[in-house]
């Protein structure tokens, strides 16, 4: 038995003895990053090892493993968790000219600890046969009585909703947003359930008329190989909210390099690769996210939605107001 355990330990520590490599803890699902990592390995000869999981459990693992953690990079799909990792002092400062050049200032950390890698917007979607576009205006307006029993949105346990509310707290203050939250919840057509695609399907099926989703889910369904997805998505239109005020709520998927990184050079190389043209084009073409590099072309679906005004709020604030947002959502009964 003991022998066997030793053998196991030996086998599984062996793999970390390779030459050039970089190790990632990723909250981004394997399928949505692996092709890029493979390309990186092909170009540089650096092997990439990855463990995927939920951001918070990865944070917990990093905290427990402490300075001996094998991970070099933490990759997340939302800025709030990047800020949380920074608050827990897990990241180190990175001076990369390229990263600073490509990534707009509000999409990276002021202390150079985390960097946005791709952009997503949280938009209003609606059923054009039941909603007059002119009735839509802002996130705030969704609390209006005219939307009673007409709104679908996923659970407040989802970090995209938390970040939207956090951004609103930063823009309007806690009191105003709490009142808004009560109104919004009383307008729900059904208790929150499912993911963003579910809200799109629910609107297409007539359960509700208006919803809140990340833009790439709608694009993904429009371009899906499954006919039912395309049929549903075609019944939906996208609306850019807050165009005359703060602008559309934006979030990033991003990464930071860990304090204890043993492969810092390779890790920086990988981050630089991920903001490079090849990777950014891939984000846009495969996952319909907006490129962090404003000079690059977006995919055709994204272009069809036209230009829009984005909220230029410092994303750090989304992390700082995350807990306030969640407690607020508990109080207003957003399940």
């Amino acid at each position, binding site marked *: 038995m003991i022998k066997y*355990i030793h053998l*196991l*330990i030996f086998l*599984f*520590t062996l*793999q*970390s003895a390779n030459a050039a490599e970089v*190790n990632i803890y990723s909250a981004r*699902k*394997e*399928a*949505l990053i692996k092709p890029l990592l493979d390309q990186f390995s092909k170009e540089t000869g650096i092997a990439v*090892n*990855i*463990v*995927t*999981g*939920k951001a*918070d*459990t*990865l944070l*917990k*693992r990093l905290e*427990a*493993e*402490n*300075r*001996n*953690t*094998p991970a070099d990079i933490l990759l997340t799909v939302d800025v709030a968790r990047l800020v*949380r990792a920074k608050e827990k002092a897990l990241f180190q400062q990175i001076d990369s000219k390229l990263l600073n050049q490509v990534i707009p200032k509000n999409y990276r950390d002021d202390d150079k600890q985390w960097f946005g890698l791709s952009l997503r917007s949280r938009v209003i979607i609606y059923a054009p046969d039941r909603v007059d576009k002119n009735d839509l205006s802002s996130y705030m307006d969704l609390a209006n009585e005219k939307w009673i029993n007409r709104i679908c949105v996923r*659970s*407040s*346990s989802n970090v995209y909703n*938390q970040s939207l509310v956090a951004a609103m707290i930063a823009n309007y203050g806690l009191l105003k947003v709490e009142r808004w939250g009560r109104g919004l919840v009383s307008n729900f057509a059904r*208790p*929150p*359930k*499912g*993911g*963003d*695609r*579910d809200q799109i*399907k*629910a609107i*297409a*099926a*007539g*359960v509700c008329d208006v919803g809140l989703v990340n833009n790439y889910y709608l694009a993904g369904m429009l371009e899906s190989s*499954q006919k*039912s997805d395309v049929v*549903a998505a075609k019944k939906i239109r996208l609306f850019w909210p807050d165009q005359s005020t703060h602008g559309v709520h934006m979030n990033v998927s991003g990464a930071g390099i860990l304090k204890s990184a043993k492969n810092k050079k390779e890790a920086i190389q990988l981050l630089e690769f991920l903001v490079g043209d090849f990777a950014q084009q891939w984000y846009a073409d495969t996952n319909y996210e907006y490129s962090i590099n404003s000079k690059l072309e977006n995919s055709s679906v994204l272009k069809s939605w036209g230009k829009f005004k984005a909220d230029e709020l410092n994303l750090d604030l989304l992390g700082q107001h*995350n*807990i306030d947002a*969640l*407690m607020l959502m*508990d*109080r207003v*009964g957003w*399940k």
Partner: protein
Amino acid sequence: MTRWNSLLVFISLLFSIPLAIVFGSLFFPEYEVWEHLRATVLIDYIGNSFALLIGVGFFSLLIGVIPAWLVTMYRFPLSRQLEWALLLPMSVPAYIIAYTYTGALDVAGPLQVTLREITGWQYRDYWFPEVRSLGGAIAMLSLVLYPYIYLLARAAFIEQSVCVLEVSRTLGCNAFGGFRRVALPLARPAIMVGLSLVVMETLADYGTVQYFGVSTFTTGIFRTWFGLGNSLAAAQMSALLLVFVAVFLYLEKRSRKQARYHHTSSRYSSLMQQRLTKGHGVIALIICAAPLSFGFIVPVSLLINWAIDTYLDVLGKDFYLLFFNSLFLAFITSMLAVGIALFMAYSNRNNQSLLNKIMVRLVSMGYAIPGTVIAVGVLIPFAWFDNSLDNFLIENFNISSGLLISGTVFILVFAYLVRFLAVSINTIEAALVKIKPVMDEVAKTTGMHTINILRSIHMPMMRGSLLTASLLVFVDVLKELPATLILRPFNFNTLAVRTYELANEELLAEAAVPALAIVIVGIIPVIIISNSISRSRPGHG
């Protein structure tokens, strides 16, 4: 004996470390968070968890015990096939059956879309059961968890002496009376083991209720932890969950305190299955076929239907690796779980001190804790150990050991054991209880050692239960997701992880392929074990 005892205490303590961490959190009360929870969501969490528990408990007893009795005692069309087929839903993870039924029956699913197209109705014009609801969650969990009760109930019915039933007949009981007044009470320890597994599994479930938007105590733990970023309060919630389970188990034990369940007669005449009349046979067939259909045939057909479209994209070289990883983990863990459980249950039988009892109970609590909480409870002490060792080696020998155990398969298997030892211990204990202590005493007078008694007397008598225990753990590990997700090494995926990642991106059709693979791998041991239980009737070789 003392060496056995200290080993027992050592093993128990080792596997209780995660529990200790969970309970340790109680010493640091987080008043602020609790006040927030109490004022907002706590009532909802508790109410939903309670309703879920009662619902799943009731329905899984109903569709577990009755078919078990029917297939054991009667012959009717397909009864032979149903004996093993009724176990099949066990191989379907709860979150997968939830995804499948949602995909088919949801408002945007093919059935309702077609309905609207044919009739011209709008969404609000007709009533249709909402899959993603509390009721839906009860249905889903009952459909995949009832086999625990079925399996143990059937094994108990098979092991019962027909003589006892025949005596009940002579005393004027009809068939139903014999079932209600003799067979059912005799099978109670086994059925209760099954029920407590169901209860614990239900409390620990996160995937299904989260997907259905039902806020339970367990989703609350995750929300407190992830959302509010307060792992201490989350651990405290887990501790309360455990207290609830402990009280439930204690009350169950106490309520049958005076009763003893070993076989009183050692005469076993062969079980004469009564052939049912045509009408009764069809009714029995329907009763037994319903849970099998809804728990297995329908969801698996849907999965196959989806997989046909996508298997070419999903199957690749690395898919076989997933297959191997899942099998490897399930096999290793089930062997270890049975070995450890046998040791613990047996030590407890031979030395029924309070300490031993507490130790065994402690280790069997892990099943009720959500996998994520266990994983963190395993992660923290092992990482601490690794880091301390590393510090020590650097200071004294200038060698760095890095992380020795953390991030290896070893820690993963350890976490599985913490979570699933309850399954093997409960199953094996229930079997040991039925062996009369007189047998041990007689064996001792012939000069046999404890270990020999175990090997040559008890183990052959419990062969069915040992196999059952290993099967249960095997299938459980195959389906396990949250702990695997947190603790696995780099580039290490299992079928469950792959299924989750695809399903979580709402790519149900793609997720169908690895989901089917889990089901297929799970079916094989289910069939093997079922056959061996049929043959395990005492008095038959």
